C-alpha cells in the first residue's frame, strides 16, 4: 500500500470566475479518518464533490489509491458517499436501499443477502429491513445511509456533513459510533463539517479550509493548540486575539500593554502581529514561576455550568476572556465579582504570535 488513499495535486475548481478551490495539494493516508473543516463557502464541499465525481476540477488531478480518476464519473469510482440529506430511496425498503450498490455491480444474490445482513447488524437495524426510509427516525436514516455506502466496501467513504441534521444529543452519540465503525471496517473516511467540535472529536487529521485553500492541516491537537493563522485560531474554538506591534520579543498592545512573547525570527521589529491566547490557558491564581503576568479588571462573570468565563479588561478597549473550570474544589465564594482587580498569567508557550 504505497499509494495514499487520496491524492489531490494542484486541484483548482472555478465556478464562473470565482475559484471555489485554489491549487489544492492534499494526501490522505489509507485508513485515515480525515476532516475537511471550514465555514460555508470555504471550498470543503466542492472538494468532497470532486472526490465523489459529481464535479470535475478545472485543473489539477485526483488519484484514488494510485489511480487517476480525475475525469471518471461517480459510477466508475471506488468511493461511496453519505449525503447530507441521506438521499435514501423512499420507494425501496431499507434492505433494498442497502442492496442497491451491490445489485448495480451484479453481485450474486447469495453474496448480496449475506453482505446486506452483515451491514444491517453493524448499524443495528436488523429488525428494520422491510421498513421504508420515511418511517425511520433521523438517527436511523443516518445509519441506513452509512450502511448503503459501506456495504460496497469502497476504498474511500465520503461523508457530507453527516451529523448536521441530528439533534445535539444524538450527534454526540453518533460521533462516537462513527468512529467505532470506522475503526471496525478500516476504510478511509473523509468527512466535511463546519463544526470544529465534530472535527476534533472524530478525525485523525483535520484540514482547516478558508477561501478555497487549506490554512492548516494536522492532528486535532496540533491544529487547536498551535493554530498557524489568525483564521484558524479564531475558527477553532474561542481565542483571545489581540493586535499589537512586535519588537524583539515583546508585543505592545493598545493602551501600552507590553507582553513578552517567544522570539520570532520571521517577524521584523515594528511589524504588526496578532497574539492568540486560549481562554482556558489563562490562570487567575496559583501562578507558576516564569509565567507572563498582567493585571486587569473583571467586567463580567458568565457562569455556564461546568465552567465560568470572566471578561477582563487589561486596558480600556482591550478585553480578554478567561475560562475557569468549576471543579469540586472550586467554591462559589472564590469566584471573582465584577469590578475586582485581578492578576492574570499564562505560560509563554501558550501565547502564540501569528503573523
Amino acid at each position: 500500500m504505497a499509494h495514499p488513499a487520496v491524492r489531490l495535486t494542484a486541484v483548482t475548481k472555478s465556478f464562473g470566475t470565482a475559484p471555489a478551490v485554489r491549487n489544492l495539494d492534499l494526501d490522505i493516508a489509507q485508513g485515515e479518518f480525515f476532516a475537511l473543516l471550514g465555514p460555508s463557502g470555504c471550498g470543503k464541499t466542492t472538494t468532497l464533490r470532486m472526490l465523489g465525481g459529481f464535479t470535475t476540477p478545472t485543473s489539477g488531478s485526483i488519484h484514488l489509491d494510485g489511480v487517476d480518476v480525475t475525469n471518471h464519473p461517480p459510477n466508475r469510482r471506488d468511493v461511496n458517499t453519505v449525503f447530507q440529506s441521506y438521499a435514501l430511496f423512499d420507494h425501496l425498503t431499507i434492505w433494498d436501499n442497502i442492496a442497491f450498490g451491490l445489485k448495480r455491480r451484479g453481485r450474486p444474490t447469495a453474496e448480496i443477502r449475506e453482505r446486506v445482513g452483515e451491514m444491517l447488524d453493524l448499524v443495528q437495524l436488523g429488525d428494520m429491513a422491510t421498513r421504508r426510509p420515511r418511517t425511520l427516525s433521523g438517527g436511523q436514516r443516518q445509519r441506513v445511509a452509512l450502511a448503503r455506502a459501506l456495504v460496497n466496501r469502497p476504498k474511500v467513504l465520503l461523508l457530507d456533513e453527516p451529523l448536521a441534521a441530528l439533534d445535539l444529543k444524538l450527534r454526540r452519540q453518533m460521533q462516537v459510533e462513527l468512529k467505532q465503525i470506522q475503526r471496525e471496517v478500516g476504510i478511509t473516511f473523509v468527512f466535511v463539517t463546519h463544526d470544529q467540535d465534530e472535527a476534533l472529536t472524530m478525525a485523525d487529521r483535520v484540514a482547516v479550509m478558508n477561501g478555497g485553500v487549506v490554512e492548516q492541516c494536522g492532528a486535532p491537537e496540533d491544529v487547536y493548540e498551535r493554530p498557524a493563522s489568525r483564521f484558524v485560531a479564531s475558527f477553532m474554538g474561542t481565542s483571545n486575539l489581540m493586535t499589537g506591534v512586535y519588537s524583539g520579543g515583546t508585543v505592545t498592545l493598545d493602551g501600552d500593554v507590553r507582553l513578552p512573547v517567544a522570539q520570532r525570527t520571521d517577524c521584523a521589529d515594528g511589524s504588526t502581529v496578532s497574539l492568540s491566547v486560549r481562554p482556558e490557558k489563562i490562570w487567575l491564581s496559583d501562578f507558576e514561576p516564569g509565567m507572563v503576568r498582567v493585571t486587569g479588571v473583571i467586567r463580567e462573570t458568565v457562569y455556564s455550568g461546568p465552567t465560568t468565563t470572566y471578561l477582563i479588561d487589561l486596558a480600556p478597549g482591550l478585553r480578554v476572556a478567561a475560562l475557569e473550570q468549576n471543579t469540586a474544589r472550586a467554591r462559589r465564594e472564590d469566584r471573582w465579582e465584577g469590578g475586582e482587580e485581578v492578576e492574570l498569567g499564562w505560560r509563554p508557550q501558550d501565547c502564540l504570535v501569528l503573523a
Partner: protein
Amino acid sequence: MSNVRRPRFAIGTTMAFFALLYAPIVVVVLFSFNGQKSLSVFKGVSLRWYEAFLNDQELLQSLGMSLRVSLVAMVGSIVLGVALALGLVRTKGALGTFAGLVMLVPLVTPEIVTGVASMMLFKGFGIPLSTGTVMIAEVTFSISYVTVILRSRVAALNPELEEAAMDLGATRWQALRLVTLPALLPAILASAVLIFALVFDDFVLAYFTTGVTPQPLSVRIYSAIRFGVQPTINAVGTLMLLGSIALIALALAIPRFFGRRGGLSILSGE
C-alpha cells in the same frame, strides 16, 4: 368549529351554487332512465336507452375510437411531457427560460385556435384527417398539462437522489429509471388519469382534426344532436359521467396509495 355561527345566506348561496351546477347533470341522468322518448315528460323507469346505445354500432365505434385516442394521447403525452419537465428543470439559463415559456403557450391559446391551426397544418401537408390526426393533435395539446404538473415535482426532487444512485454504481439512465421515475410515479399516474379524462371529453380539437368515420364520441354526440336529441344520448352521457367520476376518484386515490403527497393537489385541494 361547531361553535362558529354559520350565516344563513352563506348556506343559501352554497346550496344555490350546487343546484345550478348539478341540475343539468341530474336531468340527464334522470331522463336516461325514462321509459318514454320524451325529453320533458318522465314516465316509467326503463333501461331501453342503454339497450339502444349498446345496439348502436356507430356510437359504439365512436366510443372505441375515443378510448383509443385517449389511451394514445395519455401514453404519448406522458412520455414526452415527463422528458420535457426533466429537461426544463435542468436546463439553466436563457434557453431553459425560453423553452419554459413556449411550453405554456398551448395552455393559454384558445382551443378553437389550436383546433383550426391543427386542421390547416394537416391540410397544408396534405395529410388526410383521420383517427391518426386526432391522436397527434391531442398528444401535442396534452404535453403542456403533463409538463406543468410534473415540473414542480421534478424541481422539488432532491438532486442528491440521482447523485446517490450514480455514486452506488448506476449509470445516468439507470439512475433515471431506478430512482427518479419511481420517485415521480404518483404524479405521473395522476397526470395520466387527468389527460385520459381531458382527451376523452375533448370536443373542439377533436372536431377540427377528425375524419368523417369514425368520429370521436363527443363529435358523434354533437352531430347526432343536430338531427334532434335522442334519449340514447342521455344514456351515453350518464355512462361518461360515471367513467369520469371513476377516473377522478382514481386520480385522488393514487397519492394516498403511495402514502405521500405528489399527485394532483389541484384536484384534492391539499
